[in-house]
């Protein structure tokens, strides 16, 4: 962590969110929220249910288009993102409710994360011999490293629909990692997990951050995990930013304490 903290201090912002507002049919989901994510850090977004956390991630990877504000990602300022652009620009994502391709095996799911890195054109795929197969096998090897990293060798050929929830989350992380993202968005990566699974997932997240230097923005409800993992924490409540700072600062922030006490938890 020490090393990582040092890097962040001198690192520049990979993402700057400026004055974002988002509404759905008159319901304001996000109101004028600004924050930044520094290269190489683990950034947590917390807040009570309905605080607009997932909407924020959806804005970042282009699934929602905010009415106001700008998104500055890697120095390019935009009013909104597009999912495909986000993908090509190195933003990967996991979902709260697991959005895997249920009919495909673990291996194929993770392979699908390599989609953008695979370049061989369609005609070669008809005959498969040659470039298409070579590319396929090269990427298979890379994917195997991810499988190895996440220790899911035993479920390589299992259709993901048959896997227990905790493993599905892991496969989804694998698919995101296969994109070799610069910014990884994790939406409640530990929801519904038992203690042991949470510990494993925390370790993977830290290892991803350490080994590949991936910047991570994550939403999580388990405060213990958030405080342990993250370098900085953003707190949303009713779509507004109520606090932003290091875990220690957040712990003692009165606004945060009020927000959490005000909600039945």
């Amino acid at each position: 962590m020490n090393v990582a903290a040092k890097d962040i201090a001198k690192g520049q912002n990979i993402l700057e969110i400026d004055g974002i507002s988002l509404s759905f049919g008159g319901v304001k989901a996000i109101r004028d929220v600004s924050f930044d994510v520094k290269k190489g850090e683990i950034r947590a977004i917390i807040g009570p249910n309905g605080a607009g956390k997932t909407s924020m991630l959806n804005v970042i990877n282009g699934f929602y288009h905010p009415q106001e504000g700008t998104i500055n990602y890697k120095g390019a300022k935009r009013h909104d993102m597009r999912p495909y652009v986000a993908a090509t620009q190195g933003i990967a994502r996991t979902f709260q409710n697991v959005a895997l391709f249920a009919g495909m095996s673990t291996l194929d799911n993770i392979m699908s994360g390599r989609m953008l890195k695979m370049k061989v054109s369609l005609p070669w795929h008809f005959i498969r011999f040659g470039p298409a197969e070579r590319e396929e096998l090269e990427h298979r090897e890379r994917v195997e490293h991810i499988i190895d990293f996440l220790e899911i060798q035993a479920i390589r050929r299992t259709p993901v629909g048959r896997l227990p929830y905790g493993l599905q989350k892991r496969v989804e992380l694998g698919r995101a990692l296969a994109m070799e993202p610069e910014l990884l968005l994790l939406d409640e990566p530990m929801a519904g997990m038992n203690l042991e699974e949470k510990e494993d997932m925390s370790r993977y997240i830290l290892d991803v951050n350490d080994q590949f230097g991936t910047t991570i923005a994550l939403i999580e409800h388990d405060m213990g995990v958030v405080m342990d993992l993250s370098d900085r924490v953003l707190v949303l409540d009713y779509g507004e930013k109520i606090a932003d700072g290091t875990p220690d600062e957040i712990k003692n922030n009165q606004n945060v304490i009020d927000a959490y006490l005000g909600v039945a938890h």
Partner: protein
Amino acid sequence: MFYREAGQFKTNYRTDQAVFPIFQDKIGVLVILAFLFLVVPFWFNDFWLNSIMIPTLIFSLAAIGLNLLLGYAGQISLGTGGFMGVGAYSCYKLTTIFPDINILVHILLSGFFAAIVGILFGIPSLRIKGFYLAIATLASQFFLEWSFGRIGWLYNYNPSGAIEVSTKRMFGIAITGPHATSLTRYLIVLSIVVVLTWVASNLVRGRIGRAWMAVRDMDIAAELIGIRLLQAKLTAFAISSYFAGVAGALMVFMWLGAAEVESFDINHSFLILFMVVIGGTGSLIGSFMGAAFIWVLPIFLRAAPRVLGVDISAATVEHFNFMIVGGLIIFFLIVEPNGIARLWQIGKEKLRRWPFPY
């Protein structure tokens, strides 16, 4: 029971990703191919070749086409009959415009016209999904049917409105038209179907197939990992239509010898759809089994009273035929909604797990 997989380990990804990684499966496929290429030609009479083998193969090809779209890319189409027609009429036009070029080249080229039409009518898939899309594809079906009947240029202003196949030769052997033997046509159809099945299996096993399945299983997630929905869906429509188009060309040139609008009507679309669903969506082998089942069943039903010595009028037989086919389809959907391919797969797994239960 037959499987002895112990000791079949893979030391590289190429063998690990092979179509048939298990040795016994490889043998099985070789046996089937040998049967089709070497045994069938010598043992099956003209009736079998003409009424069962050739149409089953042709419909299998069309079913594979639809299966690529429906089973892999998750886009429903009720327009397969129309796309087959595009293939058939393009091939017909090609033979009249370029009579000297080999008919096999025409057949394979005609698929491209179907692919272009497929792309055009696939565009709505960007906006609408599921049944809405299915209905939208009916637009292509009815428009194409109308075109085949109303645009005289397509059938060379033939007064009968039908297209007829003339005799074409290759290496001095008649391969189309009234002089071509069933055996020749059978072998040509078989070869084309085998090659195109191989192509289909290459596609679904690689990046393209994964992109399709990703779109099928969860299009939002597919978009977020960098799959362009437009491209993926239209590719699926194009390739699916290519297969249907070639099947249509084969149907006219290698089987029927002549065709009119009715050969490509909506009932054919449903027929192919049944083959895919009964055979098993998302399974190439299922397409063959579905085609064989749906095609052979009525033939069998028609022959049954004669064989059993029951005397019923032809009309009544036809009525019962409808009822039995309809009833069997419902029965089949209830018993195994995932199709024959699923039964096949379970059977295979049972054999692999033998003597343990699966």
